[in-house]
């Protein structure tokens, strides 16, 4: 019988962005379930705070300074994590890029920034961690994107543009990794980057929204979802299907 209280016992996990409310909840959840977690943050104070909260549960977890806008920084982050971890079996891509400008207001610099943070960063970490997972025939990759891919919001075209490709990338990686027991799934999050609650939705929810998000990441990271790959899960309290508000 599986130990449901320690679903990731002995596993090594990487979370690219542990600095926003969702990323922070995810890091804590994975550590609570026995994983050793390496996570990126832009603010060392937040990194220290998270580390302080999980040090008893997962003493070998650590953070590294990481800006997803810095392509070389991501390569360095991946290299350092691979030096410290014998084998990464869980990878959570949690990009945070969000610029609220209309198409007319936006400039090429915005395009480059968002495509790097939300899209290229995912490709870079996949390149770094997918190979060893495949060689060891074990791994779960979770790419977090935004539910604005299906339910666009006005004045935010670049979030949809940059996140819209993550689903396809998820499915093609899942296809490639399937027979090597590397599972790859996508979460279309209704919690927008930097926020701690879902955008307005029909479901009456009790409890923390970021905890609920972290629980889905835990489910996909663990063997509870061992027959699930190449899928996209919408976490938005039913907002996607709401016809009459």
């Amino acid at each position: 019988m599986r130990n449901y209280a320690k679903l990731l016992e002995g596993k090594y996990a990487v979370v690219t962005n542990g600095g926003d409310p969702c990323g922070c909840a995810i890091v804590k959840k994975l550590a609570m379930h026995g994983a050793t977690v390496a996570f990126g943050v832009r603010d060392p104070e937040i990194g220290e705070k998270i580390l302080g909260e999980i040090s008893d549960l997962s003493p070998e977890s650590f953070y590294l300074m990481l800006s997803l806008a810095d392509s070389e920084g991501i390569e360095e982050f991946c290299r350092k994590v691979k030096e410290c971890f014998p084998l990464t079996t869980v990878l959570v891509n949690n990009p945070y890029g969000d610029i609220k400008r209309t198409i007319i207001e936006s400039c090429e610099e915005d395009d480059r920034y968002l495509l790097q943070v939300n899209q290229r960063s995912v490709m870079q970490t996949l390149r770094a961690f997918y190979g060893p997972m495949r060689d060891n025939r074990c791994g779960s990759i979770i790419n977090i994107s935004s539910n604005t891919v299906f339910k666009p919001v006005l004045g935010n075209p670049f979030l949809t543009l940059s996140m819209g490709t993550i689903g396809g990338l998820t499915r093609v990686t899942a296809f490639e990794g399937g027979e090597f027991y590397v599972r790859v799934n996508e979460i279309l999050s209704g919690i927008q980057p930097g926020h701690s609650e879902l955008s307005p939705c029909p479901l009456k929810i009790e409890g923390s929204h970021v905890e609920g998000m972290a629980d889905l990441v835990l489910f996909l990271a663990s063997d509870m979802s061992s027959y699930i790959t190449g899928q996209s899960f919408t976490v938005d309290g039913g907002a996607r299907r709401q016809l009459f508000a």
Partner: protein
Amino acid sequence: MRYDKMLQDKHILITAGASQIGKACALLFASHGGIVAIADKDKGAGKDLLHQLKEYHEDSRFYHTDLGCSDSVKDTCDRYLSDFGAPDVWLNCEGLCHPAFIDEQEEAPLREMINLNTLSTFRIMKYLAGPMKEKQGGAIIQMISDYAVTGANGVAAYGATMGGLFAMTNSFAMDYAPYGIRVNSILLGISLSAMGDIIAAETEDEEAEEFWVRTQMIPRRGKVEEVADTALFLASDMGSLITAEGFFVNGGQNSIAHNQHYRWNWGAKA
């Protein structure tokens, strides 16, 4: 939430739960502290399972029910509501498949599938919705074939009944979301359905094995325990943000072309 007792003291009703996926879910839910009641047509299997469930909780129940008969469904719902009140979790595992090409499909088996796959769910929902609304919370999970979304050759009528059930489930979700009731579907792949049993029984091991490799990302047959884990996620507070969603548990079958020759051409297998 205690992750080793995710359904502690929750009242759970599983329709068509005496064997296969329903049974795996019942035993897992009971091991997580749930008080499980089973409704099923198979008296022998139901009683056997009840014996096992009572080891977890003395209040476990078995209701002998013909889900295709509206009187029997009403009787079971009345008895359940009188025994326990509104359920915290209702899991429906009913599903009947008569595969046939559309020009060979007779109307009688089609009607039987509509009755069991679609109408029975509507009837149960009708009886349980009111009390669940009053309770202001709960989780409903429908086991549905992934053909509800993808369609496939030789199962047009079956796919239609499942597609109807999927659409109905999502509408239930919208209707009851303001009351804190989450309604989701698990979309099962062929390897986990009765069709999977037929393929496994009618083909040599090697041939069946080749079929899973050819049609799925994860090249093996699924296990009922893997479905039960997904049901546990959706039934418990782990799935607290999720409603009106379909969870494909099918080894990635829906995300690739059925006739997957290019896996071989591409050379990943070589």
